[in-house]
Protein backbone atom coordinates (compact mmCIF):
# COMPACT_ATOMS: atom_id res chain seq x y z
CA UNK A 1 0.00 0.00 0.00
CA UNK A 2 1.31 3.45 -0.87
CA UNK A 3 1.87 5.94 1.95
CA UNK A 4 -1.14 8.21 1.12
CA UNK A 5 -3.37 5.15 0.82
CA UNK A 6 -1.99 3.87 4.13
CA UNK A 7 -2.80 7.21 5.76
CA UNK A 8 -6.39 6.93 4.59
CA UNK A 9 -6.60 3.31 5.76
CA UNK A 10 -5.11 4.35 9.12
CA UNK A 11 -7.67 7.12 9.42
CA UNK A 12 -10.59 4.74 9.01
CA UNK A 13 -9.14 1.84 10.97
CA UNK A 14 -8.09 4.03 13.89
CA UNK A 15 -11.65 5.33 14.23
CA UNK A 16 -12.85 1.72 14.36
CA UNK A 17 -10.12 0.84 16.86
CA UNK A 18 -10.89 3.81 19.11
CA UNK A 19 -14.59 2.96 19.14
CA UNK A 20 -13.74 -0.66 19.85
CA UNK A 21 -11.50 0.40 22.76
CA UNK A 22 -14.25 2.60 24.21
CA UNK A 23 -16.69 -0.28 23.77
CA UNK A 24 -14.39 -2.59 25.76
CA UNK A 25 -14.08 -0.02 28.57
CA UNK A 26 -17.87 0.41 28.74
CA UNK A 27 -18.51 -3.33 28.68
CA UNK A 28 -15.80 -3.92 31.32
CA UNK A 29 -17.46 -1.40 33.62
CA UNK A 30 -20.73 -3.25 33.15
CA UNK A 31 -19.22 -6.61 34.17
CA UNK A 32 -20.37 -7.85 37.58
CA UNK A 33 -18.42 -6.44 40.54
CA UNK A 34 -19.59 -9.30 42.75
CA UNK A 35 -20.14 -6.96 45.73
CA UNK A 36 -22.58 -9.49 47.17
CA UNK A 37 -19.76 -12.04 47.40
CA UNK A 38 -17.54 -9.70 49.42
CA UNK A 39 -14.82 -10.25 46.87
CA UNK A 40 -11.63 -8.30 47.11
CA UNK A 41 -12.24 -5.20 44.99
CA UNK A 42 -8.84 -5.58 43.28
CA UNK A 43 -9.94 -8.82 41.72
CA UNK A 44 -13.13 -7.74 39.96
CA UNK A 45 -13.37 -9.42 36.55
CA UNK A 46 -13.49 -6.15 34.62
CA UNK A 47 -10.19 -4.72 35.81
CA UNK A 48 -7.83 -6.18 33.22
CA UNK A 49 -10.05 -5.88 30.12
CA UNK A 50 -10.88 -2.35 31.27
CA UNK A 51 -7.24 -1.33 31.25
CA UNK A 52 -6.66 -3.09 27.92
CA UNK A 53 -9.62 -1.20 26.45
CA UNK A 54 -8.18 2.04 27.76
CA UNK A 55 -4.84 1.32 26.14
CA UNK A 56 -6.46 0.44 22.82
CA UNK A 57 -8.47 3.68 22.94
CA UNK A 58 -5.34 5.76 23.56
CA UNK A 59 -3.37 3.93 20.87
CA UNK A 60 -6.27 4.30 18.45
CA UNK A 61 -6.41 8.05 19.12
CA UNK A 62 -2.64 8.31 18.62
CA UNK A 63 -2.89 6.75 15.17
CA UNK A 64 -5.96 8.84 14.37
CA UNK A 65 -4.13 12.08 15.19
CA UNK A 66 -1.12 10.96 13.18
CA UNK A 67 -3.19 10.05 10.13
CA UNK A 68 -5.06 13.38 10.29
CA UNK A 69 -1.75 15.24 10.41
CA UNK A 70 -0.60 13.31 7.38
CA UNK A 71 -3.78 14.20 5.50
CA UNK A 72 -5.46 10.82 5.69
CA UNK A 73 -8.85 12.40 6.40
CA UNK A 74 -9.07 13.52 2.79
CA UNK A 75 -10.58 10.25 1.61
CA UNK A 76 -11.57 11.72 -1.78
CA UNK A 77 -13.62 8.68 -2.70
CA UNK A 78 -15.26 8.70 -6.10
CA UNK A 79 -17.46 6.19 -7.86
CA UNK A 80 -15.00 5.42 -10.63
CA UNK A 81 -12.13 4.77 -8.28
CA UNK A 82 -14.16 2.41 -6.14
CA UNK A 83 -15.47 0.59 -9.20
CA UNK A 84 -11.98 0.22 -10.65
CA UNK A 85 -10.68 -1.09 -7.33
CA UNK A 86 -13.51 -3.59 -6.98
CA UNK A 87 -12.98 -4.85 -10.49
CA UNK A 88 -9.20 -5.26 -10.20
CA UNK A 89 -7.71 -8.71 -10.61
CA UNK A 90 -6.28 -8.53 -7.09
CA UNK A 91 -9.64 -7.99 -5.43
CA UNK A 92 -11.22 -10.63 -7.66
CA UNK A 93 -8.63 -13.22 -6.69
CA UNK A 94 -9.06 -12.46 -2.98
CA UNK A 95 -12.85 -12.59 -3.27
CA UNK A 96 -12.82 -15.91 -5.13
CA UNK A 97 -10.43 -17.38 -2.56
CA UNK A 98 -12.60 -16.22 0.34
CA UNK A 99 -15.81 -17.56 -1.22
CA UNK A 100 -14.39 -21.00 -2.06
CA UNK A 101 -12.59 -21.48 1.28
CA UNK A 102 -15.62 -20.33 3.30
CA UNK A 103 -17.90 -22.57 1.27
CA UNK A 104 -15.71 -25.54 2.09
CA UNK A 105 -15.18 -24.81 5.77
CA UNK A 106 -18.74 -23.74 6.60
CA UNK A 107 -20.87 -25.88 4.28
CA UNK A 108 -18.97 -28.91 3.01
CA UNK A 109 -16.63 -29.77 5.90
CA UNK A 110 -19.24 -30.20 8.67
CA UNK A 111 -21.90 -31.85 6.48
CA UNK A 112 -20.32 -33.95 3.73
CA UNK A 113 -17.99 -36.93 4.33
CA UNK A 114 -14.43 -35.69 4.39
CA UNK A 115 -13.12 -37.89 1.57
CA UNK A 116 -15.78 -36.48 -0.78
CA UNK A 117 -15.81 -32.86 0.39
CA UNK A 118 -12.05 -32.35 0.30
CA UNK A 119 -11.31 -33.48 -3.29
CA UNK A 120 -14.26 -31.39 -4.52
CA UNK A 121 -12.89 -28.33 -2.73
CA UNK A 122 -9.32 -28.79 -3.94
CA UNK A 123 -10.42 -29.38 -7.52
CA UNK A 124 -12.73 -26.35 -7.58
CA UNK A 125 -10.07 -24.14 -5.97
CA UNK A 126 -7.38 -25.18 -8.45
CA UNK A 127 -9.60 -24.83 -11.51
CA UNK A 128 -11.07 -21.48 -10.46
CA UNK A 129 -7.73 -19.87 -9.59
CA UNK A 130 -5.93 -21.32 -12.61
CA UNK A 131 -8.75 -20.08 -14.86
CA UNK A 132 -8.07 -16.58 -13.56
CA UNK A 133 -4.35 -17.03 -14.00
CA UNK A 134 -4.55 -18.17 -17.64
CA UNK A 135 -7.62 -16.12 -18.47
CA UNK A 136 -9.78 -19.09 -19.42
CA UNK A 137 -10.40 -22.74 -18.65
CA UNK A 138 -7.09 -24.56 -18.05
CA UNK A 139 -5.91 -27.19 -20.54
CA UNK A 140 -7.23 -30.75 -20.34
CA UNK A 141 -3.89 -31.93 -18.99
CA UNK A 142 -4.02 -29.37 -16.21
CA UNK A 143 -7.59 -30.37 -15.33
CA UNK A 144 -6.57 -34.01 -15.16
CA UNK A 145 -3.58 -33.41 -12.90
CA UNK A 146 -5.72 -31.18 -10.70
CA UNK A 147 -8.25 -33.99 -10.34
CA UNK A 148 -5.55 -36.51 -9.46
CA UNK A 149 -4.02 -34.09 -6.97
CA UNK A 150 -7.41 -33.45 -5.36
CA UNK A 151 -8.19 -37.13 -4.92
CA UNK A 152 -4.76 -38.11 -3.62
CA UNK A 153 -4.56 -35.16 -1.20
CA UNK A 154 -8.06 -35.92 0.10
CA UNK A 155 -7.28 -39.56 0.72
CA UNK A 156 -3.86 -38.94 2.30
CA UNK A 157 -5.12 -36.23 4.67
CA UNK A 158 -8.11 -38.41 5.54
CA UNK A 159 -5.78 -41.29 6.36
CA UNK A 160 -3.31 -39.21 8.39
CA UNK A 161 -5.90 -37.55 10.60
CA UNK A 162 -8.53 -40.27 10.89
CA UNK A 163 -6.32 -43.34 11.15
CA UNK A 164 -3.00 -42.04 12.46
CA UNK A 165 -4.21 -39.31 14.80
CA UNK A 166 -7.67 -40.69 15.68
CA UNK A 167 -9.41 -37.44 14.84
CA UNK A 168 -13.08 -38.17 14.22
CA UNK A 169 -13.79 -36.03 11.18
CA UNK A 170 -17.32 -34.66 10.86
CA UNK A 171 -19.79 -35.17 8.04
CA UNK A 172 -19.97 -38.95 8.16
Amino acid at each position, binding site marked *: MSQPAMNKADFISSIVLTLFGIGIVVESLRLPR*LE*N*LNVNSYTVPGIVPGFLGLFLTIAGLAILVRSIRRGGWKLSLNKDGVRRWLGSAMVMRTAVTVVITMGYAILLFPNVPFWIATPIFIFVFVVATEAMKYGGLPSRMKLLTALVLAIIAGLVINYVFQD*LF*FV*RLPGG
Partner: protein
Amino acid sequence: MKFIISMLAAVALFAAPATAEEYSWKPDKPVTIIVPWSAGGSTDSVTRVLAGELEDALGQTVVIVNQPGAAGSVGTTNAWQADHDGLTWAAGAAIDLGAYQVLGMLDVPVTDWKLYLHIANVAVVGANPDSGYKDFGDVLAAMKSDPDSVSVATAGVTSGGHNAMESIAQTAGGKYKHVSYDGGKPAVLAAVSGETKLTTQLASEQAEMIRAGRIVPLAVLADKPLVIEGYGEIPSIKQWVPDIKTANNYFGIWTPADVPANVLETMDKVWANAIAKSDAMAEYAANRGAILDPSSGDAALEAVSPALTQNVFLLFDGGKTKNDPTKYGFKRP
Protein backbone atom coordinates in the same frame (compact mmCIF):
# COMPACT_ATOMS: atom_id res chain seq x y z
CA MET B 1 6.50 -41.98 5.62
CA LYS B 2 5.74 -45.62 4.94
CA PHE B 3 8.29 -46.45 7.57
CA ILE B 4 6.54 -44.44 10.27
CA ILE B 5 3.22 -45.95 9.38
CA SER B 6 4.55 -49.44 9.67
CA MET B 7 6.27 -48.54 12.94
CA LEU B 8 3.06 -47.09 14.29
CA ALA B 9 1.23 -50.18 13.21
CA ALA B 10 3.79 -52.21 15.12
CA VAL B 11 3.21 -50.07 18.19
CA ALA B 12 -0.52 -50.46 17.84
CA LEU B 13 -0.05 -54.20 17.58
CA PHE B 14 1.96 -54.28 20.81
CA ALA B 15 -0.62 -52.09 22.45
CA ALA B 16 -3.49 -54.24 21.22
CA PRO B 17 -5.33 -55.65 24.19
CA ALA B 18 -5.48 -59.28 25.12
CA THR B 19 -8.65 -61.25 24.44
CA ALA B 20 -11.73 -59.58 25.81
CA GLU B 21 -14.04 -61.42 28.16
CA GLU B 22 -17.52 -62.33 27.04
CA TYR B 23 -19.47 -59.11 27.28
CA SER B 24 -22.76 -58.31 25.57
CA TRP B 25 -21.41 -55.01 24.21
CA LYS B 26 -18.46 -55.10 21.85
CA PRO B 27 -17.80 -51.59 20.55
CA ASP B 28 -16.97 -51.74 16.83
CA LYS B 29 -15.41 -48.27 16.80
CA PRO B 30 -12.91 -46.60 19.16
CA VAL B 31 -14.50 -45.37 22.37
CA THR B 32 -13.93 -41.66 23.09
CA ILE B 33 -13.57 -40.25 26.58
CA ILE B 34 -13.80 -36.47 26.64
CA VAL B 35 -11.65 -35.00 29.39
CA PRO B 36 -13.09 -31.51 29.87
CA TRP B 37 -9.81 -30.23 31.37
CA SER B 38 -6.43 -29.69 29.78
CA ALA B 39 -3.96 -32.48 29.16
CA GLY B 40 -1.72 -33.24 32.12
CA GLY B 41 -4.16 -32.27 34.87
CA SER B 42 -5.39 -34.62 37.59
CA THR B 43 -8.55 -35.67 35.73
CA ASP B 44 -6.51 -36.21 32.59
CA SER B 45 -3.85 -38.42 34.13
CA VAL B 46 -6.18 -40.69 36.09
CA THR B 47 -8.43 -41.05 33.03
CA ARG B 48 -5.46 -42.12 30.93
CA VAL B 49 -4.66 -44.89 33.43
CA LEU B 50 -8.32 -45.88 33.35
CA ALA B 51 -8.37 -45.85 29.52
CA GLY B 52 -5.58 -48.42 29.48
CA GLU B 53 -7.57 -50.73 31.75
CA LEU B 54 -10.73 -50.25 29.68
CA GLU B 55 -8.90 -51.09 26.46
CA ASP B 56 -7.92 -54.43 27.93
CA ALA B 57 -11.43 -55.16 29.10
CA LEU B 58 -13.35 -54.01 26.03
CA GLY B 59 -10.91 -55.08 23.35
CA GLN B 60 -11.22 -51.71 21.64
CA THR B 61 -9.10 -48.57 21.46
CA VAL B 62 -10.04 -45.87 23.95
CA VAL B 63 -9.23 -42.37 22.71
CA ILE B 64 -8.87 -39.41 25.09
CA VAL B 65 -9.91 -36.01 23.77
CA ASN B 66 -9.15 -32.91 25.85
CA GLN B 67 -11.84 -30.23 25.55
CA PRO B 68 -11.14 -27.75 28.34
CA GLY B 69 -13.18 -24.63 29.03
CA ALA B 70 -15.83 -23.10 31.31
CA ALA B 71 -15.13 -25.28 34.38
CA GLY B 72 -15.40 -28.44 32.34
CA SER B 73 -18.89 -27.72 31.04
CA VAL B 74 -17.85 -27.29 27.39
CA GLY B 75 -16.52 -30.83 27.04
CA THR B 76 -19.29 -32.33 29.13
CA THR B 77 -21.90 -30.60 26.94
CA ASN B 78 -20.27 -32.08 23.86
CA ALA B 79 -20.40 -35.56 25.38
CA TRP B 80 -24.12 -35.06 26.01
CA GLN B 81 -24.74 -33.80 22.48
CA ALA B 82 -22.94 -36.73 20.85
CA ASP B 83 -24.96 -39.82 19.85
CA HIS B 84 -26.16 -41.65 22.95
CA ASP B 85 -24.56 -44.90 21.79
CA GLY B 86 -22.03 -45.58 24.52
CA LEU B 87 -19.10 -44.57 22.29
CA THR B 88 -18.70 -41.12 23.87
CA TRP B 89 -18.04 -40.56 27.56
CA ALA B 90 -17.03 -37.63 29.71
CA ALA B 91 -14.65 -37.69 32.67
CA GLY B 92 -14.25 -35.46 35.69
CA ALA B 93 -15.09 -34.89 39.33
CA ALA B 94 -18.65 -35.78 40.28
CA ILE B 95 -19.24 -32.55 42.22
CA ASP B 96 -18.63 -30.53 39.04
CA LEU B 97 -21.08 -32.65 37.06
CA GLY B 98 -23.73 -32.07 39.69
CA ALA B 99 -23.21 -28.30 39.75
CA TYR B 100 -23.51 -27.53 36.02
CA GLN B 101 -27.32 -27.37 36.08
CA VAL B 102 -27.42 -25.06 39.10
CA LEU B 103 -24.68 -22.91 37.59
CA GLY B 104 -26.74 -22.63 34.40
CA MET B 105 -24.03 -24.24 32.27
CA LEU B 106 -25.68 -27.47 31.12
CA ASP B 107 -29.35 -28.19 31.73
CA VAL B 108 -29.01 -31.89 32.47
CA PRO B 109 -29.55 -33.25 35.99
CA VAL B 110 -26.90 -35.59 37.35
CA THR B 111 -29.50 -38.38 37.45
CA ASP B 112 -29.70 -38.34 33.64
CA TRP B 113 -26.13 -39.56 33.54
CA LYS B 114 -24.87 -43.02 34.40
CA LEU B 115 -21.90 -42.59 36.71
CA TYR B 116 -18.88 -44.89 36.95
CA LEU B 117 -16.65 -43.71 39.78
CA HIS B 118 -13.13 -44.89 40.52
CA ILE B 119 -10.98 -42.91 42.95
CA ALA B 120 -11.81 -40.56 45.76
CA ASN B 121 -9.65 -37.63 46.76
CA VAL B 122 -9.55 -35.71 50.00
CA ALA B 123 -8.39 -32.17 50.70
CA VAL B 124 -5.42 -31.54 52.99
CA VAL B 125 -4.55 -28.31 54.80
CA GLY B 126 -0.89 -27.93 53.90
CA ALA B 127 1.38 -25.16 55.19
CA ASN B 128 4.64 -23.65 54.04
CA PRO B 129 7.34 -24.88 56.49
CA ASP B 130 8.21 -21.26 57.41
CA SER B 131 4.60 -20.20 57.95
CA GLY B 132 4.92 -20.52 61.72
CA TYR B 133 1.89 -22.82 62.03
CA LYS B 134 2.78 -25.82 64.16
CA ASP B 135 -0.61 -27.48 64.01
CA PHE B 136 -4.08 -26.75 62.71
CA GLY B 137 -5.00 -25.05 66.00
CA ASP B 138 -2.55 -22.24 65.16
CA VAL B 139 -4.35 -21.68 61.85
CA LEU B 140 -7.74 -21.44 63.56
CA ALA B 141 -6.35 -18.96 66.08
CA ALA B 142 -4.85 -16.80 63.31
CA MET B 143 -8.10 -16.85 61.33
CA LYS B 144 -9.72 -15.10 64.29
CA SER B 145 -6.93 -12.80 65.46
CA ASP B 146 -5.28 -11.74 62.17
CA PRO B 147 -7.33 -13.01 59.18
CA ASP B 148 -5.36 -10.96 56.61
CA SER B 149 -2.25 -12.96 57.40
CA VAL B 150 -3.92 -16.30 56.60
CA SER B 151 -3.39 -16.49 52.85
CA VAL B 152 -4.78 -19.66 51.27
CA ALA B 153 -3.99 -20.87 47.74
CA THR B 154 -6.64 -22.87 45.88
CA ALA B 155 -7.51 -23.74 42.29
CA GLY B 156 -10.36 -21.21 42.25
CA VAL B 157 -13.84 -20.71 43.69
CA THR B 158 -15.34 -23.86 42.20
CA SER B 159 -12.43 -26.07 43.30
CA GLY B 160 -12.45 -28.70 46.00
CA GLY B 161 -9.73 -26.74 47.78
CA HIS B 162 -11.88 -23.62 48.11
CA ASN B 163 -14.84 -25.75 49.18
CA ALA B 164 -12.75 -27.20 51.97
CA MET B 165 -11.58 -23.81 53.22
CA GLU B 166 -15.09 -22.33 53.03
CA SER B 167 -16.56 -25.12 55.10
CA ILE B 168 -13.75 -24.72 57.68
CA ALA B 169 -14.44 -20.98 57.94
CA GLN B 170 -18.21 -21.45 58.06
CA THR B 171 -18.07 -24.17 60.72
CA ALA B 172 -15.24 -22.97 62.96
CA GLY B 173 -15.61 -19.22 62.44
CA GLY B 174 -12.90 -16.81 61.36
CA LYS B 175 -11.76 -15.39 58.05
CA TYR B 176 -8.90 -15.86 55.57
CA LYS B 177 -7.43 -14.33 52.43
CA HIS B 178 -8.34 -16.39 49.38
CA VAL B 179 -5.89 -16.44 46.46
CA SER B 180 -6.84 -18.42 43.34
CA TYR B 181 -4.48 -20.14 40.92
CA ASP B 182 -4.83 -21.85 37.55
CA GLY B 183 -5.03 -25.32 38.98
CA GLY B 184 -4.17 -27.55 41.89
CA LYS B 185 -0.47 -27.83 41.08
CA PRO B 186 0.18 -24.06 40.79
CA ALA B 187 -1.76 -23.51 44.03
CA VAL B 188 0.39 -26.05 45.86
CA LEU B 189 3.50 -24.46 44.38
CA ALA B 190 2.43 -21.07 45.72
CA ALA B 191 2.42 -22.50 49.23
CA VAL B 192 5.80 -24.13 48.59
CA SER B 193 7.39 -20.90 47.41
CA GLY B 194 5.83 -18.95 50.28
CA GLU B 195 3.65 -16.70 48.12
CA THR B 196 0.83 -17.95 50.34
CA LYS B 197 1.05 -19.59 53.74
CA LEU B 198 -1.46 -22.36 53.19
CA THR B 199 -3.07 -24.48 50.53
CA THR B 200 -6.16 -26.66 50.88
CA GLN B 201 -5.87 -28.57 47.61
CA LEU B 202 -6.25 -32.32 47.22
CA ALA B 203 -3.87 -34.75 48.90
CA SER B 204 -2.92 -36.11 45.48
CA GLU B 205 -1.67 -32.72 44.41
CA GLN B 206 0.40 -32.20 47.56
CA ALA B 207 1.79 -35.72 48.03
CA GLU B 208 5.23 -35.15 46.46
CA MET B 209 5.81 -31.86 48.28
CA ILE B 210 4.72 -33.40 51.58
CA ARG B 211 7.16 -36.27 51.13
CA ALA B 212 9.95 -33.81 50.35
CA GLY B 213 9.21 -31.70 53.43
CA ARG B 214 8.38 -28.62 51.34
CA ILE B 215 4.83 -28.65 52.69
CA VAL B 216 3.78 -29.52 56.23
CA PRO B 217 0.36 -31.21 56.24
CA LEU B 218 -1.64 -29.93 59.21
CA ALA B 219 -4.96 -31.74 58.81
CA VAL B 220 -6.95 -33.84 56.37
CA LEU B 221 -10.60 -33.05 55.62
CA ALA B 222 -11.83 -36.56 56.34
CA ASP B 223 -13.29 -38.45 59.25
CA LYS B 224 -10.18 -40.57 59.63
CA PRO B 225 -6.47 -39.74 59.47
CA LEU B 226 -4.79 -40.15 56.07
CA VAL B 227 -1.59 -42.10 55.55
CA ILE B 228 0.74 -40.87 52.82
CA GLU B 229 3.37 -43.36 51.73
CA GLY B 230 6.78 -42.11 52.67
CA TYR B 231 5.51 -39.45 55.07
CA GLY B 232 3.23 -40.93 57.70
CA GLU B 233 -0.11 -40.04 59.15
CA ILE B 234 -1.97 -36.73 58.73
CA PRO B 235 -4.44 -36.08 61.57
CA SER B 236 -8.16 -35.67 60.85
CA ILE B 237 -9.57 -32.17 61.03
CA LYS B 238 -12.25 -33.47 63.42
CA GLN B 239 -9.61 -33.25 66.15
CA TRP B 240 -9.98 -29.44 66.02
CA VAL B 241 -13.38 -28.91 64.38
CA PRO B 242 -15.59 -31.82 65.48
CA ASP B 243 -18.77 -30.52 63.77
CA ILE B 244 -17.31 -30.18 60.30
CA LYS B 245 -19.02 -32.20 57.57
CA THR B 246 -16.51 -33.97 55.38
CA ALA B 247 -17.28 -35.48 52.02
CA ASN B 248 -15.10 -37.42 49.62
CA ASN B 249 -14.42 -35.93 46.21
CA TYR B 250 -15.06 -38.70 43.68
CA PHE B 251 -13.63 -38.88 40.16
CA GLY B 252 -15.07 -40.98 37.39
CA ILE B 253 -16.50 -41.20 33.88
CA TRP B 254 -20.11 -40.92 32.76
CA THR B 255 -22.36 -41.36 29.77
CA PRO B 256 -26.04 -40.46 29.19
CA ALA B 257 -28.26 -42.92 31.09
CA ASP B 258 -30.34 -43.69 27.97
CA VAL B 259 -27.55 -45.42 26.04
CA PRO B 260 -28.35 -49.01 24.92
CA ALA B 261 -28.86 -51.37 27.87
CA ASN B 262 -26.07 -53.75 26.82
CA VAL B 263 -23.54 -50.89 27.12
CA LEU B 264 -24.45 -50.29 30.76
CA GLU B 265 -24.64 -53.99 31.52
CA THR B 266 -21.17 -54.51 30.09
CA MET B 267 -19.70 -51.50 31.87
CA ASP B 268 -21.22 -52.62 35.19
CA LYS B 269 -19.41 -55.93 34.78
CA VAL B 270 -16.17 -54.29 33.65
CA TRP B 271 -16.32 -52.03 36.69
CA ALA B 272 -16.88 -54.92 39.10
CA ASN B 273 -14.36 -57.27 37.47
CA ALA B 274 -11.60 -55.21 35.96
CA ILE B 275 -11.52 -51.75 37.53
CA ALA B 276 -12.14 -52.84 41.13
CA LYS B 277 -9.26 -55.29 40.86
CA SER B 278 -6.95 -53.15 38.76
CA ASP B 279 -3.37 -53.04 40.05
CA ALA B 280 -2.60 -49.97 37.94
CA MET B 281 -5.48 -48.00 39.44
CA ALA B 282 -4.65 -49.15 42.97
CA GLU B 283 -1.01 -48.18 42.56
CA TYR B 284 -1.94 -44.80 41.11
CA ALA B 285 -4.23 -44.14 44.09
CA ALA B 286 -1.67 -45.22 46.68
CA ASN B 287 1.04 -43.04 45.18
CA ARG B 288 -1.19 -39.98 45.11
CA GLY B 289 -2.74 -40.19 48.57
CA ALA B 290 -6.11 -41.15 47.07
CA ILE B 291 -8.50 -44.03 47.73
CA LEU B 292 -9.58 -46.54 45.08
CA ASP B 293 -13.31 -46.94 45.72
CA PRO B 294 -15.10 -47.97 42.51
CA SER B 295 -18.85 -47.87 42.25
CA SER B 296 -21.40 -47.55 39.48
CA GLY B 297 -25.06 -46.79 38.93
CA ASP B 298 -27.21 -46.08 41.97
CA ALA B 299 -24.40 -46.87 44.40
CA ALA B 300 -22.29 -44.24 42.65
CA LEU B 301 -25.03 -41.63 42.87
CA GLU B 302 -25.40 -42.35 46.56
CA ALA B 303 -21.66 -42.07 47.15
CA VAL B 304 -21.40 -38.65 45.55
CA SER B 305 -24.60 -37.08 46.81
CA PRO B 306 -23.25 -35.72 50.16
CA ALA B 307 -20.38 -33.86 48.48
CA LEU B 308 -22.61 -32.80 45.62
CA THR B 309 -25.31 -31.34 47.84
CA GLN B 310 -22.78 -29.62 50.08
CA ASN B 311 -21.11 -28.10 47.02
CA VAL B 312 -24.23 -26.72 45.32
CA PHE B 313 -25.40 -25.05 48.52
CA LEU B 314 -21.94 -23.62 49.21
CA LEU B 315 -22.00 -22.15 45.70
CA PHE B 316 -25.57 -20.88 46.07
CA ASP B 317 -25.00 -19.34 49.50
CA GLY B 318 -21.88 -17.68 48.17
CA GLY B 319 -24.00 -16.11 45.40
CA LYS B 320 -22.14 -17.97 42.66
CA THR B 321 -25.05 -19.80 41.08
CA LYS B 322 -27.76 -18.48 38.80
CA ASN B 323 -30.38 -20.93 40.01
CA ASP B 324 -31.71 -22.07 43.37
CA PRO B 325 -30.62 -25.69 43.97
CA THR B 326 -33.90 -26.57 45.68
CA LYS B 327 -35.62 -26.07 42.30
CA TYR B 328 -33.65 -29.01 40.99
CA GLY B 329 -34.54 -31.39 43.77
CA PHE B 330 -31.53 -30.76 46.00
CA LYS B 331 -32.40 -30.83 49.71
CA ARG B 332 -30.52 -28.56 52.07
CA PRO B 333 -28.46 -30.78 54.39
